[in-house]
């Protein structure tokens, strides 16, 4: 029964679990001031796991394994690599977090959440999917509220928990309805049964709506976005970065697989709903971002808006659409982690998070300012950074699918984006510190930050310039959805 293929399909998860075990065993023996080394261990371990997976864990023809619970294909594989990359970077950023970085539990929780996300990307069965989502979410609830002494962090954790459980229950209700109507929980069998036409459009519609609640929460689209700014603001910055990238991308992995595979017959109706939600999400996210004064809240609203852009690719419902979503998420993960990384590096030294505190930053650390510029311009969608190409691909997919109006909405929104991203950069480059000489207030980077940020910066530029390999991977990931 246990063939090499099955082994290969869950190879990364097995290794992650092993890494968790090692961490749990080793960490208590370290002295308190050495415990931040758990970050090196996590990041290094994940790096090795990524290489091992790339060497031995590559999928061939897409197959369902483990009794149809898991789909072994490029879509899942590509997302897994993305998640592991994001988690490794997050571990590096977490290391020098004053309060969270010294505690091994943080890394363990991060890894367990990663495990759940990996499974989200490959679940081929609704039961498995639900388990995976919960596995990914519960550690994140704890991580968001990790700073016990900090009221905002506790509030963030609790808010995230409440919203998360409510929406996931609603989604579970949707799942159970599907099982009631179709008699199966397997996503791939579901497609056949639905194609046979046993389910009325209205029922399918309501089921989809229920499921959308849960997923909409994960990817933070309007009207399920309320938690995002508060949670990002309150949770430790690296965790916020992880929430806004990997967690969101995991939600998108589910969206793509579920909607493309299980509900292709209802595509005309759900693409329309998603198109409306996408337009709303972009607009609300961008409009609310304008007036933000806290950089983490700004990034929270911007990440809401970005979920809207990425949805355009889902709405396009085509090969290129799916490929562009995957590409978009790859570019977005690198970019947003870079943005949060810079915020983390800045607040570690200064303890400040408001945009106005960034005044004179380009004189205090020119490289950090340059990285922030790269991240923000990439979010704006300017070349030569990843965000530009990603946006063009999504827009191209939208135009191809005759959703030109949605693309126009997207483009109007990018214009709003230019305004507030550049506005933030104005503080970094243009303004000076009040009554202080910047020379006396440098912002040194620790080694882990330097590594993480350099890798991300390189990634953002590479995705934006040499985009052929990334696109062919995204394309391969999208290939087997039909």
């Amino acid at each position, binding site marked *: 029964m246990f063939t090499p293929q099955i082994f290969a399909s869950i190879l990364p998860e097995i290794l992650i679990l092993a890494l968790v075990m090692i961490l749990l065993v080793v960490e208590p023996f370290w002295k308190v001031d050495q415990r931040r080394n758990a970050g090196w261990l996590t990041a290094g371990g994940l790096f090795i796991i990524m290489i091992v997976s790339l060497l031995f864990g590559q999928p061939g023809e897409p197959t369902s394994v483990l009794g149809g619970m898991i789909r072994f294909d490029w879509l899942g594989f590509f997302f897994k690599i993305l998640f592991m990359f994001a988690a490794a970077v997050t571990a590096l950023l977490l290391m020098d977090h004053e309060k969270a970085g010294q505690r091994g539990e943080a890394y363990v929780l991060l890894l367990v959440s990663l495990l759940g996300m990996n499974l989200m990307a490959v679940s081929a069965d609704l039961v498995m999917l639900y388990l995976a989502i919960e596995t990914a979410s519960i550690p994140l609830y704890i991580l968001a509220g990790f700073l016990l002494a900090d009221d905002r962090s506790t509030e963030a954790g609790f808010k995230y928990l409440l919203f998360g459980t409510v929406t996931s229950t609603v989604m579970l209700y949707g799942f159970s309805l599907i099982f009631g109507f179709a008699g199966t929980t397997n996503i791939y069998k579901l497609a056949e049964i639905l194609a046979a036409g046993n389910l009325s459009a209205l029922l399918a519609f309501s089921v989809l709506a229920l499921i959308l609640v849960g997923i909409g929460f994960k990817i933070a689209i309007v009207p399920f976005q309320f938690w995002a700014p508060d949670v990002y603001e309150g949770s430790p910055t690296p965790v916020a970065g992880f929430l806004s990238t990997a967690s969101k991308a995991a939600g998108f992995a589910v969206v793509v697989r579920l909607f493309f595979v299980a509900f292709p017959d209802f595509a005309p109706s759900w693409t329309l709903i998603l198109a409306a939600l996408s337009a709303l999400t972009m607009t609300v996210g961008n409009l609310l971002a304008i007036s933000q004064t806290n950089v983490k809240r700004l990034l929270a609203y911007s990440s809401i808006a970005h979920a809207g852009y990425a949805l355009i690719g889902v709405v396009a419902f085509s090969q*290129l659409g799916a490929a562009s979503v995957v590409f978009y998420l790859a570019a977005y993960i690198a970019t947003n982690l870079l943005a949060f990384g810079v915020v983390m590096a800045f607040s570690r030294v200064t303890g400040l998070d408001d945009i106005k505190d960034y005044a004179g930053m380009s004189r205090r650390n020119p490289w950090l300012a340059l990285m922030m510029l790269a991240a923000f311009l990439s979010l704006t969608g300017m070349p030569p950074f990843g965000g530009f190409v990603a946006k063009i691909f999504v827009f191209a997919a939208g135009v191809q699918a005759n959703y030109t109006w949605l693309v126009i909405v997207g*483009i109007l929104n990018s214009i709003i984006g230019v305004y507030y991203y550049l506005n933030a950069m104005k503080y970094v480059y243009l303004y000076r510190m009040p009554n202080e000489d910047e020379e006396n207030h440098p912002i040194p980077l620790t080694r882990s930050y330097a590594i993480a940020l350099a890798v991300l910066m390189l990634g953002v530029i590479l995705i934006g310039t040499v985009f052929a390999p990334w696109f062919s991977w995204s394309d391969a990931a999208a290939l087997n959805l039909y």
Partner: protein
Amino acid sequence: MNFPILSIITFLPFVAAVVMLMMPAERKTEVRAVALATAAIDLLLAGWVYLQYLLRGMTGYQFIETYNWLPALGISLKFGVDGMSAPLVLLTGIVMFTGVLISWGENNEHVSAGIQDRPREFFAFLFLLAGGVFGVFVSLDLFMLFFFYEIAVFPMYLLIAIWGWIKTREYAAMKLTLYLFIGSVVSIVGVLVMYWAQYQNTGVLSFDMLQMESAGFSSTFQYIWFLPVFLGFAVLGGIWPFHNWSPDGHVAAPTAVSMFHAGVLMKLGAFAALRVGVMLLPEGAKQWSWLIMTLAVIAVVYGAYIAFVQTDLKYMIGFSSVSHMGLVMLGFSTLNQNGLTGAGVQMFSHGVMTALFFAITGMIYDRTHTRMIPELGGIAKVMPFATIGFIIGGFVSMGMPGFSGFIAEFPIFMGVWREQWFVAVIASISIIITAAYIMMNIRKVFFSPMPVTLEGHVGDITVLDKVAISTLCFFMIVIGLFPAVMVPMVERGVENILRLLGGA
């Protein structure tokens, strides 16, 4: 032709920008030296491309380089120049070189000219901009054209906002960026629509503009999409009524950036509007040429009139740019040989001329700390060299025979006359207004008695400044005296456009 000269021209500034950012911030002189060396190499290479094209009597697209970038979507890195773009590549080289020269400046107890605050970052951003500009002029692939177009837009924000004139820089930089970004994203929708329409018509998935020329877009399609594409780019070309960002941007920008902005960036918009709008959607261009002509003639006259009433030297030049770029658009709108040739030469001529104007204005401002025309006077005594340069620029601006402005404007008016004679009559009013304000200002700024406030502490410009001024004047005079060094070349580029327009 295997030597990848166009790629080198395009990517050298990017490499230089990275190298400069790696250098220690306090090594200002070394940073400037790297910048100057890079600019000089780029100028030489651009000049070489230009001369080759001219002397070998090349036609069509030459120096073509193709690298498959993303075959799945038909994106390739395809470079090449024709008679239209080769002069603009040279222009960019000239402005880049002179821009670095005048930004070197000097810094002593008397005067602080040029860029003294963080020159490393300044030159790095300036070179990103320059690389983007080169990229647009040489790209034959629509995706890459866009890629470089956007690269050329965003450094402007930082360059103006950080090193600009303190009073208006934030406002002007944001206004400029928003205008340009709106323009570019509007045309991006058009471009994507064209891309898929081509796929439907021909089954070819490609951003290659040479292929798109034969995509067979239907008349209706061209009618609908010509305006967004053309106007989207033309915003950067300063077309009325979307010109508003431009004078504000000029005024707020530091000197070298003003030179780039007026000298090269506005050509970028006009050039992209021509290349993508007119050349890929020729039917649309024919149907809408009346509108473009109307907007252009308004820009020509209105710009000249507004320039006439300005009291700030930079605003005056800024609005005169709007007026002169209106002539370029007017040339485009004729869609005939004379008009397009004139527009091609005008792009080059105006680029050099405005760069010169802004350079000299910057030098004057750095030493007198004012740009208000009523407060200036007697500059000719202290800066004789700059005065001569300004007068030559003035002659070009007025379209005096013997200077490049004449070679450019005369065919434009001929072309317009062939289409609509009364438009030519209206537009020619601008020549008189231009002559009036140029003469008046030269008299006031350079030859009236020097106000007491300036007496005694205004010095002459540096040697590097003089080199920059001479370089710019050289090109204006050579083209004026020997039109054969440019006109036949542009004509060969225009032939290609006329072929697309159906051999009119």
